[in-house]
């Protein structure tokens, strides 16, 4: 097996009394797409910053590219590409100049920076915007530019902290498509998200994180298989009737989850459950059978929804 690009054991970060990351173990192989899925405050960004060698760990072992961030921060960062949760492009420079200036931080000669900037603008589908001030870009374009910037040093690992949060569906799909391309080229991707569809689309393997701890680990399909049923029936009886209806259908399917606005019945065969429900004389205002998702895995593991 090749040496992992990232390996962490018991990785821990305290901010005063607050335990932001509480002893997590992760290992990422070269070429893998690895995700950290978790709700707000789970410790995803903190983990990313420790791996990115910009935040000193409180405890645990951490190796990135085989090196210790405490002693080899510049070395690690020299071969990492980082897309932070909050954009930090230089809004006073033009789009292309942002790439060039950033490339210089890596000691890349100016002429090489300029050439890479043009290639990356093409990759990010921003050629037409080369001369535009960053402030005039849309949110999705800024995100693409940040990704392009993160690639300026031809990184071994690309770290993306919530790459599509706040983007509209169209912009997200454009971005996913770019990330797919990188994945196909063999770039190792490490990303955090609280969108299950994003995790399902992009991650070969992921960990579900909550309160700084890993709750489960596996491929999206494995996690769904392990922690959920194949299908889910969503039933809405109206907020006041959900509880009582849930009592009546207890025993249907593998498991029932009562949410404020709906009741979820987990079962291998959703249609069969629906039939049983109507046989019981219950008439939900709306009903829907869908495939299980990571959202359901998360609900099962933490008793909470991923997006609050």
């Amino acid at each position: 097996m090749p040496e992992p690009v990232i390996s962490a054991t018991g990785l821990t970060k305290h901010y005063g009394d607050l335990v932001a990351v509480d002893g997590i173990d992760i290992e990422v192989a070269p070429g893998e797409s690895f995700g950290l899925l978790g709700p707000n405050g789970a410790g995803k960004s903190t983990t990313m910053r420790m791996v990115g060698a910009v935040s000193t760990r409180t405890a645990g072992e951490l190796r990135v590219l085989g090196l210790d961030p405490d002693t080899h921060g510049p070395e690690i960062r020299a071969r990492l590409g980082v897309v932070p949760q909050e954009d930090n492009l230089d809004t006073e420079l033009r789009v292309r100049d942002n790439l060039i200036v950033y490339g210089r931080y890596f000691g890349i000669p100016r002429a090489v920076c300029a050439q890479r900037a043009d290639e990356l603008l093409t990759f990010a589908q921003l050629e037409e915007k080369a001369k535009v001030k960053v402030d005039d870009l849309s949110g999705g374009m800024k995100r693409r530019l940040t990704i392009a910037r993160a690639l300026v040093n031809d990184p071994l690992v690309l770290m993306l902290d919530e790459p599509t949060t706040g983007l509209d569906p169209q912009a997200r799909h454009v971005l996913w498509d770019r990330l797919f391309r990188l994945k196909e080229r063999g770039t190792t991707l490490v990303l955090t998200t609280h969108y299950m569809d994003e995790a399902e689309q992009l991650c070969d393997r992921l960990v579900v994180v909550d309160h700084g701890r890993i709750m489960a680990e596996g491929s999206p399909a494995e996690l769904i298989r392990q922690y959920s049923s194949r299908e889910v029936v969503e039933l809405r009886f109206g907020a006041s009737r959900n509880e009582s209806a849930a009592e009546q259908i207890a025993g249907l399917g593998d498991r029932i989850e009562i949410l404020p606005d709906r009741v979820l019945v987990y079962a291998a065969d959703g249609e069969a459950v629906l039939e049983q429900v109507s046989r019981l004389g219950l008439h939900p205002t709306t009903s829907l059978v869908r495939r299980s998702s990571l959202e359901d895995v998360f609900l099962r593991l933490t008793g909470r929804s991923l997006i609050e």
Partner: protein
Amino acid sequence: MSATDVVSPAAASAIEAARRPRRFGALYVAEHQIRAMRAYGWTIVIGGVGSPLVYLLGIGLGLAAFLDAPVADGPDGPVRYLVFVAPALLATAATTVPTEEFTYTVMAGFKWRRIFWGMNASPLAPHQIVGGLVLAAMARMLFTAVAYAGLMLAFGAVGRPWAAAVLPFVGVLGGLAFGLPLLAFSASLKDDAGQFAAVQRFVFTPMFLFSGTFYPLDTLPQWLAWIGWISPLWHASELGRWVSYGAPMSGATIAAHLGILAGMTAAGWVLARRTFVARMRG
């Protein structure tokens, strides 16, 4: 890690890739900062040339013509008022640069434009970011001080012509002694709730007025003169006078002026560096 350790190809490539940034990182930051200064390049040029013109004209043609009593002596008797004031004005001009470059620029880097966080994720280390900021500000101070010295020469405001070549460095030293502690202070702020305006009003302006800029410091009563003694501007002005027209000064006094300026610069550097590291590696 020593060269004899066996490292993976990935680690080897990382070690290679970090060579240049480890060595030249501060220069890359300075490069970016100077590029950013171009956005307000005209302000720098007009301020750098216009402000000395106004002061030298105003004082040389106006105030100095009106003052009869000599305020200070050189080695060969009294010196003209303009000659006395000019080195202090040059030092003031250099000291003004950090009130912009080490305040708003720092808040912008951490908070408004967030570009320091971008630098931070690259191979650059926090102390290199500090170094780059200082280099860029020094470049601007040097430009301002050289412009000043050139105009002083044109106005006959230097005692000895060769002094015009040395004065800019005295100015930059004064600017650093005032600027680096200010940089440390600015880097410790999470927000600008008027602190920078307060620095301007309650630190810079009193320093400018009570540092023996326009009259010898010993004119002031003791209870005000202390402002001059702790003021980098006074120490730089006195050094400038010694350089410009050979203001009488013992070797010990010169050494004290230099030592205090160097000490403030060094202390500011250590504090600024520590503040940046704490903030960027937390």
